[in-house]
């Protein structure tokens, strides 16, 4: 077992970095545990180190922020205050009995077959989020990727998902994804957004509170225009076509009620579709620790503390709101942790700037959520043979049958009666669709193992020691 640290930060994206740096600046010894090869998370994902790239494939809107974070991390690493464990996939955080702190269990090695355990007095969960994709016929064809996935592979690996790409779904991520793909050399055949301009206007006051964020969207749209790409608002991808890989998609307009407008369907040829409907938080580690959730988000107080003593959370895991919100939350968490580990109560006035940013950005995120709600009839547009659970190949029809004929009434009973959610991804991909088909709100599944764990690693876990 590795030596005991004061604070273990899980996730080295904006929230985790901000938290680690704020705590380290106040003298806390930090171990930063992250699955990626380099710090930065999804937002600041860089090309793989061995590529020796001088810059990201497309200009990053927060390049200076990144440089500041990276330089600070380098300084604290050199000083020995921060230990950065890269390519460590955390599968469980265990609360040890008798106030002996926490054990952060991770997997490493090329096949993630080696178990590593880090002991810590406090934990900051900054596990980020993943993309929600609402199923439609054909969405399992190779060539259909998540919008965030297309961006991640481009940023980290400098490859494109195809030559001719349609970007579709809903949410503020679509614009930068499309701009990045176009600038990296893809032909963006269409950018299809189901939300309409009216929805944006209705939320104008909340959005106007963040002129910088709105300008960012305008900036991406302008960059896209240079490539002749004009976003199609209030449109949706109805179906993906192809035999063994994607060949085309059918795009159609939505009426004001969010339903398909008859007679508007047209086929767009493409070899890649980058699709997403917003993000969902990773809450597995928090849930297993017993932290209270609120809907799909980890619940935190004004200091970013969960209701489990010694466990803080920041960033998307406490509610999706983007990198700037994650930075503010991480910063507050780091300062709170530094004070609490010394046994003192922190003075919230010390983080007043971050606090104000947090308030503003949460309101902004709530407004965006309302603007980018999925079109109202997405559940009905899943045909019975549309795969819902990609792992176990369960179609929408079988979920409907479990609900209609077998008495299933929630995600768990649907899972037990259809296997939807029992496969490799443990329901992360099919969760929203199962909830939609069952007619119940999306609740985070219980996943004691945040990642698959070799039985040999479980069997070799350190024996509890009475220290």
């Amino acid at each position, binding site marked *: 077992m590795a030596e005991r640290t004061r604070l273990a930060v899980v996730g080295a994206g904006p929230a985790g970095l901000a938290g680690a740096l704020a705590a380290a600046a106040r003298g806390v010894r930090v171990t930063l545990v992250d699955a990626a090869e380099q710090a930065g998370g999804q937002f600041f994902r860089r090309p793989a180190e061995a590529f020796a790239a001088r810059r990201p494939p497309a200009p990053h809107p927060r390049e200076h922020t990144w440089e500041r974070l990276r330089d600070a991390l380098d300084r604290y690493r050199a000083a020995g205050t921060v230990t950065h464990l890269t390519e460590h996939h955390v599968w*469980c955080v*265990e609360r040890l009995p008798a106030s002996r702190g926490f054990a952060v*269990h991770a997997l490493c090695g090329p096949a993630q*077959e080696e178990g590593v355990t880090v002991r810590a007095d406090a934990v900051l969960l900054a596990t980020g989020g993943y993309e929600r994709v609402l199923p439609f016929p054909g969405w399992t064809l190779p060539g259909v990727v998540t919008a965030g996935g297309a961006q991640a592979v481009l940023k980290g690996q400098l490859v494109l998902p195809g030559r001719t790409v349609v970007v579709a779904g809903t949410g503020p991520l679509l614009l930068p994804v499309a701009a990045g793909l176009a600038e990296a050399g893809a032909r963006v055949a269409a950018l299809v957004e189901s939300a309409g301009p009216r929805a944006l206007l209705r939320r104008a006051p909340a959005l106007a509170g963040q002129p910088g964020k709105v300008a960012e969207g305008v900036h991406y749209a302008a960059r896209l225009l240079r490539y002749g790409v004009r976003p199609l608002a209030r449109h949706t991808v109805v179906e993906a076509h192809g035999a063994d890989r994607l060949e085309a998609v059918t795009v159609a307009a939505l009426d004001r009620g969010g339903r398909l407008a008859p007679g508007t369907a047209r086929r767009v040829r493409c070899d890649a579709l980058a699709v997403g409907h917003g993000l969902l938080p990773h809450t597995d580690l928090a849930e*297993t620790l*017993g932290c209270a959730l609120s809907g799909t988000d980890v619940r935190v107080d004004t200091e970013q503390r969960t209701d489990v003593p010694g466990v803080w959370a920041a960033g998307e895991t406490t509610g999706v709101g983007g990198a700037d919100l994650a930075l503010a939350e991480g910063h507050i968490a780091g300062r709170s942790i530094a004070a609490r580990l010394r046994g003192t109560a922190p003075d919230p006035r010390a983080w007043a700037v971050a606090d104000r940013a947090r308030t503003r950005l949460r309101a902004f995120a709530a407004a965006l959520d309302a603007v980018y709600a999925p079109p109202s009839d997405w559940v009905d547009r899943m045909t019975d043979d549309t795969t819902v659970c990609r792992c176990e190949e369960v179609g929408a029809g079988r979920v409907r049958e*479990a609900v209609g*004929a*077998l*008495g*299933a*009434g*929630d995600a*768990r*009973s649907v899972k*037990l*009666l259809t*296997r939807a959610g*029992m*496969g*490799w991804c*443990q329901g992360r991909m099919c969760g929203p669709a199962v909830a939609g088909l069952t007619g119940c709100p999306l609740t985070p599944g*219980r*996943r*004691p*193992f945040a990642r*698959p*764990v*070799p*039985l*040999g690693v*479980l*069997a070799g*876990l350190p024996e*509890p020691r009475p220290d």
Partner: protein
Amino acid sequence: MRLTCDVVVVGAGAVGAACALYAARAGLDVCVVDRGQVAGGTTGAGEGNLLVSDKAPGPELELALLSAGLWAGLADELGPAVEYEPKGGLVVAKTPGELSALHGLAERQRAAGVAAVRVGPRELAELEPHLSPGLAGGVLHPQDAQVMPALAAAHVIRASGARLHTGSNVTGVLRGRSGAVRGVRTARGDIHAPAVVNAAGTWGGELAALAGTHLPVLPRRGFVLVTEPLPRMVRHKVYAADYVADVASDSAALRTSPVVEGTSAGPVLIGASRERIGFDRALSLPAVRALAAGAIGLFPFLEPVRALRTYAGFRPYLPDHLPAIGPDPRVPGLLHACGHEGAGIGLATGTGRLIAQALTGEATELDLGPFRPDRFGAPGTSPATRGGQTP
């Protein structure tokens, strides 16, 4: 909601489903109510074992044998949807000492009508090619089988034709002036019936209390590990001989003994841990650590295989480790069908059959004496002695 029927079954798990099925087939109009979903309790958190092999001669084994036959018939009727697999159980012994104790148990089981075949080390390797070498031997129990428990419960309820009310919490048991049961009160309204069957599993004690009587049902926590999908590497339900001792144990501490089986869907299921720590669902890494180590000990190929998930279930047990089945003489119209511990899926069919016979006043196929719900007396009095089913 105001409904009337002949019998209300409280609990939509495997036991409640079987009670509903056989009661309906006896001509009764049945409602099933559950505060959660179909198979939402212990049924949804178990492996679906239909075992005779882990039971010593006695009333539980008789019930298991009755149930095994009924399950086979139901599986024919319901088809592949319930994933019934008569795969047989293989109990293995590590040492000659363990093996002779196992043989002794098998001998007594055979006398009670159980098929139990002695297996030498070489035949072990033929039956289970991936089993660890060096085991002393074992016993094969061809009558052991498995179902997918949640699917089984759901399809049995559907086959019963009973009206199913999920998400309906029973908040009271309605009783007449004489004290006899008249139905149940739920958050969604009353259901009137002259008979109520308590198939509430781990919550059976609470339902008994609502009816003004006492049944000391307690939860015993068990974890199951589920692996990635595999081809058929484990053909039988394979477990170590010490499992039988753990099943019957009275210890509150964590006990684990490896139980490993493949499923038709692909994943290998690994049990079985037992702890008495109330309704704490929190992950226990010491428990899953012991499960993983035990499973690798039996099947070394499992070492690099990944566990995708683990879940805890709460097995409802009574102090003498026998279920409560039949009419409660203290509350006319109340029948109990709960407290089956980790064997509820396997014992469900027999329990349902006996309950239906009791409801219609027929002679029951087995003597209900050992399962009498009033055998524990009132709370605070000393419990009855153990049922004597321990090997």
